[in-house]
């Protein structure tokens, strides 16, 4: 067995995460792989919409900006990158990366591209071949939303990304792959794990789950935040992975944040369903098998992970258009702030009713009072100021737009002491609902190609 671990760091937990984190990981100490995770479920629909307006977009443009900064250092240090930045437009992402490499004077870099996840254009063919794509939560048939679908992507696993690395790729760009697969792929590649090594695949998947949300395993979102040193310089997570499936979570020396059993456990349970049945395209993981052990300062060793064979289906993430929404807020200060906020809400809803506007759904929230936790805590008798947040949802875009025009007038024609309306009128935003489904693996063919730029 190899005694040296491979070091896999994650510098991006979502599209919008710290723009400095990838460079800090590359410069802060040794790593072998840098993973960059850009895709949330709703991101796919946003990217398809961008692409429909401009055929050169539809990928995580942040990725190219990050690469512009760190590309030469990656080559110099031999650090490989695995990312899902390709979104719904792998070719344009690749082109942009190639252009950036050229501008930086880099050549001979091998780029692996993993495709086959985007089935939007294949839906009719797949339905004809026996795929049902019923909503796996509600059981409803796809025909109910067929005409409103804006994106449809299969969650591919780690194997295709590992294959791209096997073919020599320095940078692997994928579209919709599992977040955990970004970290598992390098382990499969370096250690030669097979697709039937279920315990090992499960271990790599757990490592990926701990890494996938960036600093959420290194002190970010940590319950005892008062114990976290130097948040401003928080270290992003690094896994030192061993061939036997054990691994250590750590971060670079001199960085802020902390790693202990609780920080790791908090992240292990993040977005968790049934812990003994964590399904990925690569394997099924039992989170009840995970053993944590302290291994020095800011180091936790993880071992004992058990897995079993993958299912014969892929999960499909479909997004469909369901109407419009808008939300906006007003800040209400001074004596009787809560009573005034309630009065403001009453006035706005009355005016919209008078204007003939009806909505499928409305919301009235009092930020600073109880919007997050309802009546878990007793209400304070008086607060100095409060933010009234109103929202509407409907198919009628004109009504949603009209709602946006009813907030600002309150400042001059409602109760006194209202402010905080500098951002302009809330505009209607398209809503895309999530439609999870399953598809037989046989119907989907992931493709791998490696190009030298």
């Amino acid at each position, binding site marked *: 067995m190899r005694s040296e671990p491979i070091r896999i760091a994650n510098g991006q937990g979502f599209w919008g995460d710290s723009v400095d984190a990838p460079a800090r990981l590359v410069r802060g100490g040794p790593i072998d792989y840098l993973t960059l995770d850009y895709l949330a*479920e*709703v991101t796919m*629909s946003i990217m398809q919409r961008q692409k429909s307006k401009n055929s050169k977009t539809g990928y995580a443009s942040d990725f190219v900006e990050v690469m512009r900064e760190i590309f030469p250092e990656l080559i110099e240090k031999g650090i490989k990158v695995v990312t899902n930045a390709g979104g719904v437009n792998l070719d344009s992402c690749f082109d942009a990366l190639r252009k950036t490499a050229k501008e930086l004077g880099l050549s001979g870099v091998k780029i692996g591209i993993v495709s086959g996840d985007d089935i939007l254009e294949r839906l009719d063919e797949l339905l004809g071949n026996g795929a049902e794509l019923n909503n796996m*939560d509600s059981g409803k048939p796809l025909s109910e939303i067929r005409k409103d679908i804006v994106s449809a992507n299969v969650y591919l696993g780690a194997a295709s990304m590992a294959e791209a690395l096997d073919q020599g790729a320095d940078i692997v760009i994928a579209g919709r792959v599992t977040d955990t697969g970004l970290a598992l792929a390098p382990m499969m590649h370096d250690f030669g794990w097979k697709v039937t090594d279920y315990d090992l695949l499960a271990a790599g998947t757990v490592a990926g789950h701990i890494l996938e949300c960036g600093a*959420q395993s290194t002190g970010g*979102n*940590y*319950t*005892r935040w*008062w*114990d976290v040193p130097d948040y401003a310089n928080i270290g992003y997570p690094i896994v030192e992975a061993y061939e036997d499936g054990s691994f250590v979570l750590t971060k670079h020396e001199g960085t802020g944040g902390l790693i202990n059993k*609780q920080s790791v*456990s*908090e*992240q*292990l*349970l*993040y*977005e*968790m*369903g*049934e*812990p*003994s049945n964590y399904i990925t395209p690569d394997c099924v993981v039992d*989170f*009840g*098998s*995970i*053993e*944590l052990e302290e291994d020095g300062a800011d180091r936790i060793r993880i071992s004992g992970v058990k897995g079993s064979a993958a299912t014969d289906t892929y999960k499909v993430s479909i997004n469909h258009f*369901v109407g419009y*929404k808008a*939300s906006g807020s007003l800040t209400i200060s001074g004596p009787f702030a809560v009573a005034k906020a309630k009065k403001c809400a009453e006035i706005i809803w009355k005016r919209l009713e008078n204007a003939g506007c009806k909505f499928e*759904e*409305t*919301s009235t*929230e009092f*930020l600073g009072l109880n*919007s*997050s*936790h*309802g*009546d*878990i*805590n007793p209400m304070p008798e008086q607060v100095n100021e409060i933010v009234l*947040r109103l*929202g*509407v*949802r409907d198919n009628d875009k004109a009504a949603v737009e009209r709602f946006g025009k009813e907030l600002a007038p309150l400042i001059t024609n409602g109760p006194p002491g209202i402010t905080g309306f500098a951002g302009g009128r809330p505009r209607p*935003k398209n*809503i*895309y*609902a*999530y439609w*999870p489904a399953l598809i037989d693996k046989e119907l989907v063919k992931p493709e791998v190609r490696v190009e030298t730029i």
Partner: protein
Amino acid sequence: MKKVKLLEIAHSRSGDKGDSSNIGLIAKSPEAYEIIKNAVTSEGVKEHFGGIVKGRVDRYELPNLLALNFILHDSLGGGGSQSLKNDAQGKTHGQGLLLMSVEVPDDFELPNDENRPEI
């Protein structure tokens, strides 16, 4: 017996799964795990969150992590981009659960928390 908030003896983290949120509740010690395992039930969590949780609450035990995992069904106003809620992803539900009170023996020693702010 004395009453303490879960904040005193546990950690938590929450996130979304469609229109459900999940909360991981992690005890600070094996003794604290025995307490939360017995005291924090699905019914208790549903009652604690009142009108926020419109569906059922599922509960899973992870003794290896001294943890419980709760799924709060139908708690995000539609979830994802459909929800009108300020917290459409249940990011705050974990902190909400730490406000729940449980009974501990009078001689139960609370973990040291010297850096914690007063209020």
